[in-house]
């Protein structure tokens, strides 16, 4: 089983982040939620490895939320 890569892996972090923000430009909250959902599904299918995806789900869940 391969491990989820939690090390630096993007060559152009700023560029990716800007692209991520750009696709949400001008979208309503509902449209953005739908886009995010599509994006997750597209990436999940690309990764394909269910064990890896389970690690990703848990990693996302385990981040302590910011105190309100």
């Amino acid at each position, binding site marked *: 089983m391969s491990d989820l890569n939690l090390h630096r892996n993007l060559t152009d972090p700023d560029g990716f982040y800007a692209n991520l923000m750009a696709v949400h430009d001008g979208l309503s909250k509902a449209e953005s*939620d739908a886009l995010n*959902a*599509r994006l997750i*599904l*597209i990436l999940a*299918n690309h990764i394909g490895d269910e064990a890896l995806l389970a690690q990703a789900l848990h990693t996302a869940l385990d981040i302590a939320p910011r105190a309100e």
Partner: protein
Amino acid sequence: MTKIFETPLYPYARHPDQDAAAPPRHKVVILGAGPVGLAAAIDLAQRGVPVVVLDENDRVSSGSRAICFAKRTLEILDRLGCGDVAVNTGVTWNKGRVFFDERDIFEFNLLPEDGHNRPAFINLQQYYLEQFLVERVQALAAEGKPVEIRGRNRVEAIGRHSDHVRLEIETPEGPYELHADWLIACDGANSPTRRMMGLDFVGRVFEDNFLIADVVMKADFPTERWFWFDPPFNRGQSALLHRQPDNVWRIDLQLGWDIDREAEKHPDRVIPRLKAMLGEDVAFGLEWVSIYTFQCRRMEKFRHGRVLFAGDAAHQVSPFGARGANSGLQDTDNLCWKLALVLDGRAPEDLLDSYDWERVYGADENIMNSTRATEFITPKSEISRVFRDAVLDLASQHDFARPLVNSGRLSVPCIYDDGPLNSDDCAGLPARTRPGAPLPDAPLADGWLLGALGQGFSLLAIDTDCSDAAQRFGVDVLTLNAQDNPLLAERYLGTQSGAVYLVRPDHHVAARWPDYDAAAVETALRRATCAHGGLNV
């Protein structure tokens, strides 16, 4: 014309048991002449086990109820002598189409592969299936097999004893009593047996209502399963259209939770809904209307001493996936050969605990699948609806998302992995035919593999020899040649050059080897019958 479900097929007739001085004793009593009870009666009668079926009614189910019958069920019906009539009467289909909002988003084909005698699915009204099963029971009785159905015999009370069950039965001419060595309770989702025995039936209720309408119309919709998510004619809900024989169409409309169920069943409400779906100018008649709510639940155990629960009495699933009646027939397929061996003294009662293990496992798989489908169809939170709609939007353009669309995973038999009756496996043989799996069919030179099997245990000897096994163990030996049979080789040999399969009477694999080893076969047969002492299958 009188409909088949309006005709008493097994009308009440006084039986000498009703005038007996002491309660007569029977080997097996089956409670309920639904599809599951009838299948059990045929299976046992074919094995020579005397059986009495009691039902409070005297006719088949009114309304179509279960309509989709899967390949595995058809294979079971073949063994029960009703496969041809079911397939010839039914509508064979294998295509499904999915709609989202106003769009036709994709179609799919359920026919998995060639080389099977039976199709993936047929649609057939439950009343037809029950009619064929009743006729088969009557034909067996006419041949002298010890089987009978007693109509308008309602069981009112049950007493449990260590070696028998006592039944108090009400008839139009008053009560009588019977004793049974074994009782098979196939008395449906509201099982009075379960209630009278004070047993739990826990699970989840889904807060939703579905309008089920059987509509008679001459329409040119293709023979496909059409499923709509959030269509314009039923906003925020789902809909299903499916063809049955005789120009009858099943329409299923999700209605939501807060409705007036009685009012919604009224034609004044139903007809406008159907017109919105079918179009104003399609002429149709209503054959049957019902409002359905559902639950996913099962009994904790299916065996309680001498009472064995099967079908809806033991487990209930949502209708998405057609797992109700299909799984009930797998219950009796699993149970009857075991009970016949126990009654014959050829296996100990422990064998019946494997019925409990295997069919509880099957029920859990069905409940899991139908719960998942239900959650996709009726998203239970805002975010689950966001993801559901994202899947549907993607599926309209990208193939990868289509397997995520879940409008019901249609019934397939379960594989009893780690089942208590399984033994040896062998590397190199295909995964799909591993111990616990149901045998996939394959073409033979002169017919079909499943059609060549008998009622008992069999050994398949593929490109190898085990001819002394027939005499030694009293099993049927089927010697097969896979040299010129690529489908047989693919399904049964994999990378091995030969194989021996030990097959149970319900056509599940018990064990398999690369070649014949009499001692290994004997051990596997013992395990598959829970035999402690002598082996006598």
